[in-house]
């Protein structure tokens, strides 16, 4: 196995394109190193993207926010301004692993590992994030949910890699939140995750809402009916009950070592409601 640490996007793309399927993009390594050591994968080359400036920056422009793919959870947590704008996204990334893992695990890595249970993904989907993808044919952007195909797989062409994630600066009265369920207080993989972003009208009713769930289907997915349930409404018990039902109906989970179909379906509704209450409260303050 080779280890390369290019300093430009072009050099990284060239290395990846030349190596083909045997190359893997390497950032925090908290998933990849385990997969290599457990012989689940045997890459011929690791392309470490941490020396590429664009993957390491968080840029807060007037209308757009860019988070580099190899920014770590710990770094995101220390970015007070970002945390104020997208507390849900930051909290989601910060839930990944221990503080030790936080020092290494990156937002891009969490996304590219393509686990259905990845914490960052429902939060990114809820906040309408787009991924900036560089490749042999230049750079493209895509809604993050459109890149998800199935567990362990993204729709990236050979030689493509994710450079950063873009978020629009949230309009007034917008708030986001992410919650997950794990059986312990820390250190587990999400059994269910729920990310929510809401924008409120001046009268306190819902102007826009996105609710996304993790760990309940082959990929993180949007609760499609959420806007129908929420738009123009206040957050009362009836609306919450409808949202819970819609969230549960969105689930297509499996039974595995981390949870059952029944449990995931039920708890998805609970978490969607708990998350929207937090997001709503944040929106009222923003």
């Amino acid at each position, binding site marked *: 196995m080779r280890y390369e640490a290019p300093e430009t996007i072009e050099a990284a793309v060239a290395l990846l394109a030349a190596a083909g399927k045997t190359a893997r993009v390497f950032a925090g390594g908290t998933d990849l190193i385990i997969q290599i050591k457990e012989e689940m994968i045997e890459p011929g080359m690791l392309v470490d993207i941490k020396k590429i400036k664009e993957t390491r920056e968080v840029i807060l422009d007037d209308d757009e926010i860019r988070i580099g793919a190899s920014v770590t959870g710990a770094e995101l947590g220390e970015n007070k301004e970002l945390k104020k704008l997208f507390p849900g996204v930051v909290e989601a990334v910060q839930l990944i692993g221990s503080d030790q893992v936080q020092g290494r695990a990156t937002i891009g890595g969490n996304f590219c590992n393509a686990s259905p249970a990845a914490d960052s993904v429902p939060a990114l989907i809820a906040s309408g994030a787009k991924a900036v993808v560089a490749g042999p044919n230049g750079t493209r952007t895509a809604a993050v949910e459109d890149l998800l195909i199935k567990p362990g797989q993204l729709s990236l062409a050979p030689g493509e890699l994710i450079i950063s994630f873009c978020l629009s600066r949230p309009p007034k009265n917008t708030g986001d939140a992410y919650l997950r369920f794990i059986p312990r*207080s820390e250190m587990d993989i999400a059994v269910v995750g729920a990310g929510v972003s809401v924008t409120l009208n001046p009268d306190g009713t819902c102007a826009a809402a996105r609710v996304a769930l993790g760990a309940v289907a082959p990929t993180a997915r949007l609760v499609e009916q959420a806007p129908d349930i929420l738009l123009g409404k206040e957050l009362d018990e009836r609306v919450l009950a409808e949202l819970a039902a819609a969230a549960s109906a969105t689930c297509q989970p499996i039974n595995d070592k981390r949870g059952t179909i029944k449990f995931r379906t039920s708890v998805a509704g*609970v978490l969607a409601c708990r998350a929207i209450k937090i997001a709503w409260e944040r929106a009222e303050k923003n």
Partner: protein
Amino acid sequence: MNEVKTTAKTNFKWVGKRTRRPDGPDKVTGRARYGDDMVMSGMLYGKTLRSPHAHAKILSIDTSKAEALKGVKAVVTHKDIPDHPLLEPPYGPMIADLHDISRNVMAREKVLYDGHAVAAVAATSERIAKAAIKLIEVEYEILPHVLDPLAAAQPGAPILHEHQFTHGVDPKPEAPSNVFRVVSAERGDLEKGFADADIIVEREFRSEPVHQGYIEPQALIATASEDGAVEIWTTTQGHFVIRGLCARLMNMDMSSIRVTASEIGGGFGGKNNVYAEPVAIRLSQKTSRPVRMVMTRSEVFRGTGPASGTYSRIRMGAMRDGTIVAAEAEIYNQAGAFKGSPVGRSVDSFFSSYSIANAKATAYDVCVNRPKVAAYRAPGAPMATMAAELTINELAEKLDIDPVDLRMKNAVQDGGQSLNGAKYGRIGLTEVLETVKNHPHYSAPLAPNQGRGFALGYWMHGGGLSSVVANLLDDGTVAIATGNPDIGGSRSSMRVMAAEELGVDLELIKPIVADTGSMGYSHLTAGSRTTFATGMAVINSVREIIEKLRALAAKKWEIPVDDVAWEAGQAVTQRDGFEALTLKQLAGMATKMGGAIAGHSEINAGGAGAAFSAQIVDVEVDPETGFVSLKRYTVIQDAGRAISPDYVEGQMQGGAVQGIGWALNEEYIYDDKGCLQNLGFLDYRMPVASDVPMIDTVIVEVPNPNHPYGVRGVGEPPLVPAPGAVANAVENAIGKKMGSLPLSPPKILGTLELCR
């Protein structure tokens, strides 16, 4: 809050004080050398090939490709491990059958569980060793497997051992069975007892196997020399046991094997056994080079012993005044691939805290396609205890009697007996229960969705064989060598007891753990026996030194030895005109006046006696998700006498938290092929720091009359009631009975939703 309640003598110089441990600086600086921290010149790296099947016949093993790989120096299969005949009855409480052990360290006719060792290699690097085991070709014929102990006990279940017929049943069975033996104990007349009962409670429980969860994986180095001598460096709870097992397994003289115990990174009973040691010996014999074998974490989960998963049924009856008049229980213990689950201890654990006139308990030792179980902190006790304690709590509920009062009424007294017939001496049960009743935690208010659990645990301690050598050095310091690996601070307690006896400063005593070549046999650091039994040998050894010092002083003073006493670290006499001789002065004279002074003691310590641990726990259950959070936890336990209170509390706290894990989240998850799915800490889910509150402790001291300082064992009792106490708290929080551990959120939510 940690407190010590004692009624006994307290004017000690060192006993009961909070002192720093002698091995402390090495352990906070990284200098301490554990199993995997040793290298030897010319060392090879061993690696084990393990079965991917739960149950399969081995048709062939072809090692030729592995042997041909550059850097591979030796390959070992079952052909290299001597076979042994089956152990014949009568069977003792502990079964160590070389026939089984030889097959557990290296599968012979069949593989019996996912992770069973099949072959091993030694190579010049870990990398090459890993590549080599992939080149070994094993042809299997897959057989049906069975994981559940109840299912395995039924006729028609896949049979693991065709030669095994259930022992202890009448008539003698004609068909082979996975049930190795049925053990029971009883007293009184059950039928009459239940007829007398006004209230009868019946319950059923299940539990999954749980791993000891030590953080240091098994690791060792074996070196065989051309003249037949073998040295082993290994992380173990008993290097003398490793020596004995290796010698018998490999048909070697015991004296030709010398075992050194490394520092040990946790064991809890899981490091009482041999796994790779015999294999590494063989690899080293084939190459005349040291061979290191270190397990990965997944190998630890797949290949080393958990505690039994269980199924149990229980029925208890009481009269309206609270007298428990009848109790009957049975438990099926998973033994794993080979016989030997702690059935006797399970039988003894159900009812031995109480004097119940009519009682019977039965335990089944059932082989299943899982790793062979190993001891785990009070083996056999926690699940039997949970069954009995939750049933008693339900009796208390139905009788409208306070659970502690109900126990007080039925508590076994000094001079009573355990169900297995062991006679109690002075025990501290009443004192423990009184302390519970008066503890502020017991009556503190609870918030909504919270529940309080209570359970009592009993454990009969072992004493056993211990050896100690104490050498007085010229400068008045004393080197104390024991044969017991120090797993949680025992060197500190040995030092305290030696300094107390001698009446000198702690710093003058230097305790070490010596290798098997240096001294007499010492049994495992297990069964909560080390401070009791090995401590007694330390005291004996030091007393021998004191006797010799008195004689030396008498010689110097030219007076009869009977006129010399030993007080506060010096020889003194009532006679006029003699100034006391200090330890240091006497030590300096010794070699000029007859020779070096040493003491030694080789004992089989008896009278360790029973100890009781009572636990109160508050939990809060999230009614929408089934998530359980621990709010408050108190452990109240009779320690006899706490030589080192810090480390007694540490045992109480650690045992309680292991019980929390057992009750709530720890379990083995297998797929339908019988392969382990959660073979790492990520999905095995032991408690982390943020899962638990401070664990409050009360050390109750009712001294054990059979130990010079009153020591009882303390390591095992705190785990005994813990899973039951936590389960009881969850039941009380949700207002429903739950009988299947772990009480994981899906199960709790399922129970709650069923009731909605």
